[in-house]
């Protein structure tokens, strides 16, 4: 292990953690050690690094986060009810650890596993070990940190040809322990077997302005011809740090949709990387972020077109108020072999105040010569003409602005296929927007 000048508090905390885990398999232990070594070497990113230039995570290093000790921190089914989704199988995790007592399991088709990663590592090591840590970029500081702390999270495995009709909702609750800020590292792996079908929602939620740090990594594997509908709902507490990585690996003819919705958290960073590693893939990556106060939300996208004849669509929209900050870095990378690529990326931001700020940077890197790629970014205020149009029909100014804000979000809303998520988001907007009752009537 290389010597380090200054030991990160994250590493200090590690040692006691490592000792506490006796019984897990050698493969996972090895993975953890590798993660630790990488993290010790690279440490927390600084603003000098290009992809961290606009998001300062120094506060993470200077805050003392205790490792979550487990248990449900006094959460009751009553308290978490607002976060549950109707007609779903709800699997609940508190500070990264599965809670059977808070979960609402349901019947799954034969051969499907959906539950705790810790449980899966113990009982289905053959399914987990070959894939866990195989896709996420091990050199990413927060992936390394998470990998060093692999303990629990969600594991979903859908065998070949099986369609899971019920939506699986993974609810990750962050909370303080005895008033102390804690860090947790949920580690998730979803595998959709060949020609299978799966709808999964990851929610990250917290209460009030509690301070905690959620650092999840999710690896998603879509085997050939599978259909995956994925949602990510960021509703962290307003004091929370959330630094997440999703690595999506798609094989030929997969249909993949993901929607990342975020309105929680003090600092949110979300790296979404999709590797299109087969022909005939359709991959949609959409998102909507709302930020106000001093919230900071950063999305780093990377889509790799590695094979010919694939389509990728990205639409990310942001609504910012007060002094909120947003960062969007979109990169589409078209490899030399990826002829007939059809890639579209768009990031649009609505600023509702003078002091809100967006750094948007869509990028294309194309090494094939027969492709159709477009990217665009817009940032602007509400259209005065449109506000006037609505007011001229008798709608008050505040309601007119809210209606147009809702309308701005509508493009993303309309593409959400899972009704429970769409309705939830609509309801959130009606509550959030001034004169939301008029918006509710008018849409």
């Amino acid at each position, binding site marked *: 292990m290389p010597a380090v000048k200054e030991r990160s508090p994250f590493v200090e905390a590690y040692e006691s953690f490592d000792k506490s885990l006796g019984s897990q398999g050698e493969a996972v232990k090895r993975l953890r050690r590798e993660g630790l070594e990488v993290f010790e070497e690279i440490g927390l990113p600084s603003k000098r690094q290009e992809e961290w230039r606009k998001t300062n995570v120094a506060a993470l290093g200077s805050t003392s986060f205790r490792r979550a000790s487990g248990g449900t921190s006094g959460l009751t089914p009553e308290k978490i009810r607002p976060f549950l989704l109707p007609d779903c199988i709800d699997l609940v995790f508190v500070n990264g650890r599965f809670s059977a007592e808070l979960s609402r399991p349901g019947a799954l088709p034969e051969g499907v596993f959906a539950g705790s990663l810790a449980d899966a590592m113990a009982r289905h090591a053959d399914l987990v070990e070959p894939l866990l840590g195989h896709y996420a970029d091990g050199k990413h500081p927060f992936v390394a940190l998470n990998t060093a702390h692999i303990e629990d999270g969600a594991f979903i495995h859908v065998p070949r040809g099986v369609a899971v009709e019920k939506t699986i909702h993974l609810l990750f609750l962050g909370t303080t322990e005895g008033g102390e800020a804690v860090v947790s590292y949920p580690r998730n792996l979803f595998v959709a077997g060949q020609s299978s079908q799966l709808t999964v929602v990851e929610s990250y939620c917290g209460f009030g302005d509690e301070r905690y740090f959620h650092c999840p990594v999710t690896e998603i594997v879509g085997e050939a011809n599978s259909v995956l509908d994925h949602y990510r709902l960021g509703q962290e507490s307003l004091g929370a740090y959330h630094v997440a990585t999703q690595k999506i690996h798609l094989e030929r003819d997969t249909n993949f949709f993901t929607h990342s919705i975020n309105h929680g958290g003090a600092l949110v960073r979300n790296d979404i990387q999709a590797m299109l590693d087969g022909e005939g893939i359709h991959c949609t990556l959409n998102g909507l972020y709302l930020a106000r106060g001093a919230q900071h939300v950063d999305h780093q996208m990377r889509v790799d077109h590695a094979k010919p004849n694939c389509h990728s669509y990205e639409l990310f929209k942001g609504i910012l108020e007060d002094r909120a900050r947003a960062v969007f870095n979109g990169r589409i990378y078209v490899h030399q072999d990826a002829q007939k690529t059809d890639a579209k990326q768009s990031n649009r931001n609505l600023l509702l105040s003078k002091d809100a700020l967006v750094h948007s940077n869509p990028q294309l890197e194309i090494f094939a010569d027969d492709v159709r790629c477009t990217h665009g970014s817009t940032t602007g205020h509400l*259209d*005065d*003409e*449109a506000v*006037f*149009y*609505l*007011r*001229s*029909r*008798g*709608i*008050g*100014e505040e*309601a*007119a602005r809210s*209606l*147009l804000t*809702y*309308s*701005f*979000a*509508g*493009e993303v*809303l*309309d593409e959400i296929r899972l009704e429970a998520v769409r309705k939830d988001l609509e309801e959130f907007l009606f509550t959030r927007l001034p004169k939301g009752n*008029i918006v509710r*009537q*008018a*849409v």
Partner: protein
Amino acid sequence: MLKIRNLHARVDDKEILKGIDLDVGLGEVHAVMGPNGSGKSTLAQVLAGREDYEVTAGEVEFGGEDLLEMPPEDRAREGIFMAFQYPVEIPGVSNTYFLKAALNAIRKHQGLEEMDAIDFLKLVRAKMKLVNMDEALLNRPVNDGFSGGEKKRNEIFHMAVLEPRLAVLDETDSGLDIDALKIVSEGVNTMRSADRSFVVITHYQRILNYIEPDFVHVLVDGRIARSGGKDLALELEDKGYAWLDPKTAGTAAAAVMA
């Protein structure tokens, strides 16, 4: 009903309205014609309350109240409707539900009970026929993806549902084919009544073949250069606007204005 006195307005530093006087009585239809840049649309926007235009002098009284003091939504609630020259597309906001919210805002202001969904739907179906609206357009977002003609028809449809006391049509006829023009005009004619007035702003005389005005005014360079009956429109159709413009017609126009 509407009294405009010495109205001056500018946008940025450019003075556009340079002293308009106009009286519109109950039940009357006034056509306001004029060449490009004469201030026709500015007049409509100022009446509807567009804040980009600064009123620098003059008064506008509507139903005995100071119109210029009111924000746009209050003007609408008091019974002014402006049909936009370029109706705005609002994706994600349903044409029907939006209209219901607008109607109820107006009714509330006027001390009337809000209309429930069933009564509103009845009203909408009745008004739809008026402008030959396709039901599909009701369920779409406001003007979203509508053709030019559909947008204009939608404006008249909004007007029909909101039943204003004064409707200002800002070049609603521009760019319409003859079928759409007839539909729009019929909509207006059906709405004509003893207690509803219209200001029809137009660049072309054509619409006045279908909507017969009580008065015609010609706006040139921010002033009403001439007022008359419906025959004035025909005269303009023959001669164009140039003879009324002091810049192009020199002393002849000066004589007319005197």
